């Protein structure tokens, strides 16, 4: 499984497979928002948590269709499915690789983007915490969507229609956590809910993804 993780990471870095692209996309979103809503720092600061979360969502979505599609085309997904490692494990590792290449850079770069968006200084810690807790759920749910649409020729648009509604709870609690953190309010409830959703998603959704892949490989 570690070998699989390393392989996926290597592929992502060397084959131009989206590593850093998500970050660049995030940067573009953050650059465009002030053009849309005006450069006033106050407004930007207020909508910053939402914009950063939406940017993370979309950046994550961008690279989803590659998770299984390439492996499906060249047949390595069949090999992985027949390998001694359970398919659920393979799916989890794939999600982890996806998170390391898209989610983790966003978490690390979040303070810079927060600076661009005039995020309030009290919110930085919560922003990073929320992204670190929330983005793994995005990746795991993304693999589910990717597993559903892996056999399709043009699944990209369908993928976003399937996956984005699943992101609603994570987005709600993630953005709420940052907003409350920025205003020095009680952050316990959204924090625990966000972490709980992520934990439950990691525990349960790989089974659904693996089932979907098995159907698609049949």
């Amino acid at each position, binding site marked *: 499984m570690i070998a699989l993780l390393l392989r996926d990471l290597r592929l992502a870095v060397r084959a131009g497979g989206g590593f850093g692209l998500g970050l660049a996309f995030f940067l573009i979103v953050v650059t465009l928002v002030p053009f849309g809503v005006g450069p006033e720092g106050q407004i930007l600061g207020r909508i910053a948590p939402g914009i950063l979360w939406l940017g993370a969502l979309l950046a994550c979505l961008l690279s989803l269709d590659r998770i299984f599609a390439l492996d499906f085309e060249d047949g390595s997904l069949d090999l992985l499915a027949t390998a001694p490692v359970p398919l659920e494990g393979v799916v989890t590792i794939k999600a982890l690789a996806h998170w390391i290449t898209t989610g983790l850079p966003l978490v690390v770069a979040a303070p810079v983007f927060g600076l661009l968006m005039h995020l309030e200084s009290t919110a930085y810690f919560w922003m990073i915490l929320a992204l670190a807790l929330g983005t793994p759920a995005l990746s795991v749910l993304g693999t*589910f969507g990717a597993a*559903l*649409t892996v*056999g*399709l020729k043009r*699944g990209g648009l*369908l993928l976003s*229609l*399937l996956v*984005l*509604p*699943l992101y*609603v*709870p994570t987005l*709600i*609690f993630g953005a*709420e956590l940052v*907003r*409350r953190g920025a205003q020095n309010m009680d952050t316990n*409830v*959204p924090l625990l*809910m966000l972490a709980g*959703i992520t934990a439950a998603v990691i525990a349960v*959704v790989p089974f*659904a993804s693996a*089932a*979907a892949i098995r*159907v*698609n490989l*049949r």
Partner: protein
Amino acid sequence: MSIWEYANPVKFMKTSSWALPWVSVATVISLAVGLIWGFFFTTEAMNFGSTVKVLFVHVPSAMMAINIWVMMLVTSLIWLIRRHHVSALAAKAAAPIGAVMTIIALVTGAVWGQPMWGTWWEWDPRLTSFLILFLFYLGYMALWGAIENPDTAADLTGVLCLVGSVFALLSRYAVKFWNQGLHQDSTILKVGEKDPLDPSYYIPLVICIVGFVLLFVTLLLLRTRTEIRLRRLKALEQRERMA
């Protein structure tokens, strides 16, 4: 005699062709009675005026929108566990009906909300979670449409329905939390609280709900029969090509 007999398409077609006219007539009667009673023979409520009559369409359609998803969940489970094709086709047939019910509930709600709340749309938890439910219906139908192999499509949409149910429910409660956090003093209408619902509204409302349930059953039987015939047609075509 067990319910699983109807997993046999021949048996299902036979029974449904017998039942369909009866259910259709019952639908027309109950909807006509309920809606006409509701629209013309109830008094206008004190604070709401004639807008209260939206109730007779809005409440049943909203109930059906949720119940149809539950029905899809059950039929998807039956398909995934026991692999009865009629079950999968019934889930497929139910989805567009559910989506339309969701639209009816949203539109009648907006029509009511305009004079009452002064706005067509408010990011109220109930409204928002219905919009999300509608998105789930859209995704479900789109996945059915995108996959060519019918068995693969049935399997994948079944899995999507299971995961979607969990997340639709989760979103429902998450959204509740979110709105309270956003604006505490918003005028949230609590439709579910039937505090003093006048008895004169109660009977026509129940008749309307029965009518909507029957309407769903009628449409579902019709659409499932169509799906089964479509499947038969495809099988015949394939056999012809092989010969």
